[in-house]
């Protein structure tokens, strides 16, 4: 026994000596950089505790206490010396507050630890707008090598448990998170990211003085108070040495991959009563959204548009025709104010009258009108790219809605918030995996948001090469689907002189004439751009041998994929196909000495393909290039395949023809 005791004591002693994570207990160990010294800073310790406090005047309040200790490794890491936090406001009386703030900076000078406290003048509170406040802590005396530590508490009258982030641009050495939830609340819990975390769940008892009002007469109520015994679920998350995660290009949203925990309110009941349901499964989520006054109820309103819609749908018009007409009607009538949302803000009726609205107002209005016109139309909930991928059934998982029309050939998706969007061609912001079509009866189904049809660009060029190296010719480009949408967005919104100037400058020294664009406003047809051009100096004459690049200014020059490795999927957004048809007529008296070889290759699993076919007929050379990416999103394991494909394409497109004088 004695032996065991001393052994235990020894162990404790040892662990205390190695590091003490209590607030203010900074030791020299904190200054020796623990994980990867390449990092600008390291979170030595992160502690968070979330509890539910109860008092008679405010009711339940979510109280979150944060404690962090950070080591600054380099001058680039000095930014971590300032910590900002956004706090929510309801717009009326309720708002979150940050209290019990304390902090200090520790510097090791001449083997001694020096402490500088954070004072009130280092705490800045800012009223950002109607819904947000910001509090910033600027730690004093932060230098390369400092250790900073701060602690504060956020009291939130809103029952949202803030996301538990456990992965940043810098590594975390040790993290401890405790979340205690009374039995009156049921939260759904989700984990994201790849780093393994240790989670334990226990139950314990708690007691509070509970105050409520009881109905005693027709209107009269009376204050009652009693002791309340209840159970609490306690979550404990422990994690060590969580590596940093930094952003990379062509990733739709890095937060999809960071390690974090989410808690979302699913149900609540008052003590001694039954649960009010929020969301638990996808069906619950869908039901909750649908039953909300700001969603389902808005779908049912028809009076405000009845006359206008009656006027545009004649009794014998086809259903397809009605979809087309109503969709265009909404697009021209109501403009998007730039706000996302699955819920209406001012309501459909007001949006209709004011002719501007958020996403929900516009697309729920559209859905309702389509329904009214006899179509099987329902809202489709979407999580935008910026909102991340909805992996779990949560209310916040969706932040956007479009209309879906179910017909014989599946579902057609419509988004009237974008002038250049067309059926099944959703704006880029909404192209994010799957949406959920919600029916009035409560059923729902998943809808793939990525388009199946490829966006096609076909460029035809007739080129006349002169002996002095100048070329002249005609160019014609036909673009469909998403590429057409992007083209229109750029072209229509731009000053036309500027567009032309930019076009000429994008191919250095191209001189454009007879410029024409067709169907830039008729979305039912592909956009067509055509012009005549002149371009100087398109050959290299080396000792009587003439080299030309048969793709001229169309040849791809630079590989967009620069990194050797990649950890995240490559997100193209939609499948695409690019075709070039080039006819080159050679100057008189010249013959072809050599031409590149024709090639064709296909990537595994039909990811993509490339074809380059070159042929000669007398004094004419024809080049056909066909490049397709068949999938909107490609997993990281194919990164080197894709990178290599681009490399080969660039090499091939820059190969040259040698001509010689006859």
């Amino acid at each position, binding site marked *: 026994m004695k032996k065991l005791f001393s052994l235990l004591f020894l162990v404790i002693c040892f662990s205390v000596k190695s590091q003490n994570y209590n607030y203010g207990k900074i030791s020299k160990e904190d200054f020796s950089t623990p994980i990867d010294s*390449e990092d600008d800073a390291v979170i030595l310790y992160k502690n968070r505790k979330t509890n539910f406090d109860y008092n008679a005047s405010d009711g339940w309040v979510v109280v979150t206490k944060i404690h962090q200790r950070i080591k600054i490794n*380099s*001058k*680039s890491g*000095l930014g971590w*010396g*300032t910590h*900002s936090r956004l706090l929510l406001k309801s717009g009326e009386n309720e708002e979150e507050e940050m209290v019990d703030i304390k902090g200090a900076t520790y510097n090791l000078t001449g083997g001694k630890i020096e402490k500088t406290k954070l004072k009130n*003048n*280092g705490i*800045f*509170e*800012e*009223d*950002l*707008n*109607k819904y947000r406040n910001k509090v*910033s802590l*600027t730690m*004093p*005396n*932060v*230098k*390369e090598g400092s250790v900073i530590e701060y602690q504060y508490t956020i009291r939130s009258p809103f029952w949202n448990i803030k996301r538990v982030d456990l992965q940043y641009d810098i590594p975390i050495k040790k993290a401890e998170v405790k979340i205690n939830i009374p039995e009156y609340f049921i939260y759904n819990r989700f984990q994201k990211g790849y780093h393994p975390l240790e989670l334990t769940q226990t139950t314990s008892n708690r007691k509070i003085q509970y105050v409520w009002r009881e109905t005693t007469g027709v209107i009269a109520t009376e204050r009652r108070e009693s002791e309340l015994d209840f159970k609490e679920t306690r979550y404990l998350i422990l994690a060590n040495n969580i590596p940093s995660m930094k952003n990379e290009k062509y990733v739709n949203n890095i937060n999809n991959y960071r390690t974090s925990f989410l808690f979302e309110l699913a149900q609540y009941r008052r003590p001694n009563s039954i649960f009010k349901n929020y969301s638990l499964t996808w069906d619950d989520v869908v039901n909750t959204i649908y039953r909300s006054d700001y969603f389902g109820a808005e779908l049912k309103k028809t009076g405000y548009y009845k006359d206008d819609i009656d006027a545009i749908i004649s009794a014998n018009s086809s259903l397809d025709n009605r979809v087309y007409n109503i969709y265009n009607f909404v697009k021209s009538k109501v*403009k*998007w*104010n*730039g706000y996302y949302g699955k819920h209406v803000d001012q309501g459909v009726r007001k949006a209709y009258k*004011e*002719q*501007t609205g958020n996403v929900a107002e516009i697309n729920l209005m559209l859905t309702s009108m389509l329904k009214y016109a006899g179509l099987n139309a329902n809202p489709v909930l979407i999580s935008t790219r910026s909102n991340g991928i909805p992996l779990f059934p949560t209310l916040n998982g969706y932040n956007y809605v479009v209309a879906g029309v179910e017909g014989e050939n599946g579902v057609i998706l419509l988004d009237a918030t974008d002038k250049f969007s067309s059926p099944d061609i959703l704006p880029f912001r909404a192209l994010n995996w799957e949406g959920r079509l919600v029916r009035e009866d409560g059923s729902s189904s998943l809808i793939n948001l990525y388009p199946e049809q490829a966006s096609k660009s076909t460029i035809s060029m007739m080129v006349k090469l002169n002996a002095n190296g100048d070329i002249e010719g005609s160019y014609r480009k036909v673009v469909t689907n998403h590429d057409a949408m992007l083209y229109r967005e750029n072209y229509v*919104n*731009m*000053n036309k*002189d*500027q567009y032309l*100037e930019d076009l*000429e*400058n994008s191919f250095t*020294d191209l001189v454009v004439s007879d410029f024409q664009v067709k169907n830039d406003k008729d979305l039912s047809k592909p956009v067509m751009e055509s012009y005549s051009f002149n371009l100087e*100096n398109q050959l*290299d004459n*080396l*000792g009587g*041998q003439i*080299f030309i690049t048969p793709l001229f200014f169309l040849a791809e*020059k*630079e*590989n967009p994929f*620069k*990194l*050797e490795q990649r950890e995240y999927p490559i997100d193209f957004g939609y499948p695409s196909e690019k075709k070039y048809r080039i006819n080159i007529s050679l100057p008189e008296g010249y013959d072809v000495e*050599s031409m590149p070889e024709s090639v064709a290759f296909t990537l595994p699993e039909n990811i993509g393909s490339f074809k380059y076919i070159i042929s000669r007929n007398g004094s004419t050379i024809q080049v056909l290039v066909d490049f397709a990416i068949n999938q909107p999103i490609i997993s990281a394991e194919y990164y080197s395949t894709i990178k290599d494909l681009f*490399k080969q394409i*660039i*090499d091939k497109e*820059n*190969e*040259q023809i*040698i001509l010689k004088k006859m």
Partner: protein
Amino acid sequence: MNYKNIVGVFLVFTTFNVLSQNNSLAVTEIPEELKKSANAVIRSYDVTVDLSSVNKMIVNTKRIITVLNKEGNKSIRAYERYDNNSKIRDIRAIVYDRFGKEIKKIKKNDFKDVSDVDVQTLYSDSRVKYLDYTPIAYPYTVEYISETVNGTTGYLPRYLPINSYFLSVEKSSYTLNYASNLNIRVQEKNTENIGLIREESSGIINYKTNSINAIKPESHSSPLENIIPKILFASNEFYYEGVPAKAENWNELGDWIYQRLLKDVNDLPTSTIAHVKKLVQNESDDIAKARKIYQYVQDKTRYISVQVGIGGWKPFNASDVDRLGYGDCKGLTNYTMALLEAVGVKANYALVHSGSSQQSFDENFAIMQGNHVILNIPLENDENIWLECTSQKSPFGFIGSFTDNRNVLVVSPEGGEIKRTKKYNIGENRQTISGECNIDSNGNIKIDATVLSEGIQYDDKYYLESLEERDLEKHYKERWSYINNISISKMEIINDKEQIKFKEIISFSASNYLNIVEDKMLLNLNVLNRNTYIPDRYRNRKLPLVIRRGFKDFDEVKISIPKGYKVESIPNDKIIETKFGNYKMSLKINGETTLIYKREFTLNDGEFPKEDYSDFRAFYRNVSKSDSAKLILVKK
């Protein structure tokens, strides 16, 4: 008629105007000429400034603007700032459709009210109310009306008929009514070709203009601020956040700044004074002392942005910065100044417009301005050292393109003085590359190169030192983006802050660099510093050509060709000489397998008439062409 009556009549008149003449707002009424290159057209813009006393200014603004397309929304600018010393009495807007028919009224409460901060700033005590309107269709017209009252009269609103690119003006006016005891100074700039009408009588200055065409941005030109017509106003007597002031020239304004904003904030704890004195005790000359103090500040502090205290102009106390270890540009500069004072080195606070466009203070018109502060150490023989105190990484005395070559206001106990900051001359902005390029028989290359950068070219690159390996690798692949398939094996950086020289030592290989056609390989000779930039072409260049900073590049690369190959068709040496710069390229053959490629490229700084722009482009085109010179390697 007294001045109140004028306002009364004026108001009645405008109201009447709006009711009866809505049709005149129709888009069809805009002259064709004004729609050219315009995203928006100001139909009328009237500003009335009433400076009824030294500490009260009322500004009435009425602006009617037609927005032609989405880009034009930026030009509406329907917002007002406010803070403890100013308030918005009236702010509202009316929206009209293309026919001039009213479609919406926006009241004061419907304007958004937010804190006036950018992302960088932690705190600011000023706020802004702005119009957040979603257009239903283009074109449309917004009539914006506001009235503000301000206790600070340190800046009088400027008269800027146009304030952005792609914006034209039908008509506009500016009226300043001022109390008789005030002395007003006025300065007109770029007003030659706008048909400006000026009327002045006792206590009233009035300006009117008609028909100003839109300006389109052009590369290699002056910043917009220097191109647009503008009229500046200043009152010699003014109030600044409740503090009275008087200044009619830079000396007096500088004196006011010193007395009111700087004099009482240079306090330091005795322990710090003792510490820095000890730090420099072995240094005899001022520059060496300043060097040590600058290093001390760089190691001790960090930059944060906080906008408080006399309109954001008063620095934190030096003792606060000393204790907290952070500050904004004013705080850090003042702190450094106080430390230098403690060790007997005289230094002065200097207000500046920061940014690479080199915006200057006007020597002849003293007015509060600038958005940044740096430190000036005057040396004998009229030379100066300039210190950027917000950077933890800049070398001593190095200000780079952020504050170089422009007039700034230097403030000292003797008052204010306009001085010019350091200009980085062509000869100082050098980049020297020496390298070796080995070619194998499959057309692959192996490169070993050293790149040495100085002056502004140092400024362009020294951030690379703080990049992580992954990002640095990406940077090099982008720098040599005309070489595909690069694989880097060595990246070493030596940042000599003492000499202000930045050295990069890089090795990489690239497959298929040479184009192989049957038994020939095509070699593009300029491997390491190929100019691919050609300035944009303008069908009708309107603005003068400005080259802000010159530079000089030297390259020498030893190229080794694979065994079994010989060189064919060697390009001629090239020399280009223009007033914009010079270019020299030569190739020497050393034995059977070695070529020495040499290149020199100089760009001169200066201002040239717009007619020279096409020659300037031609210069770049010729350089580009020469940089793509090729030779053929043939199998023996």
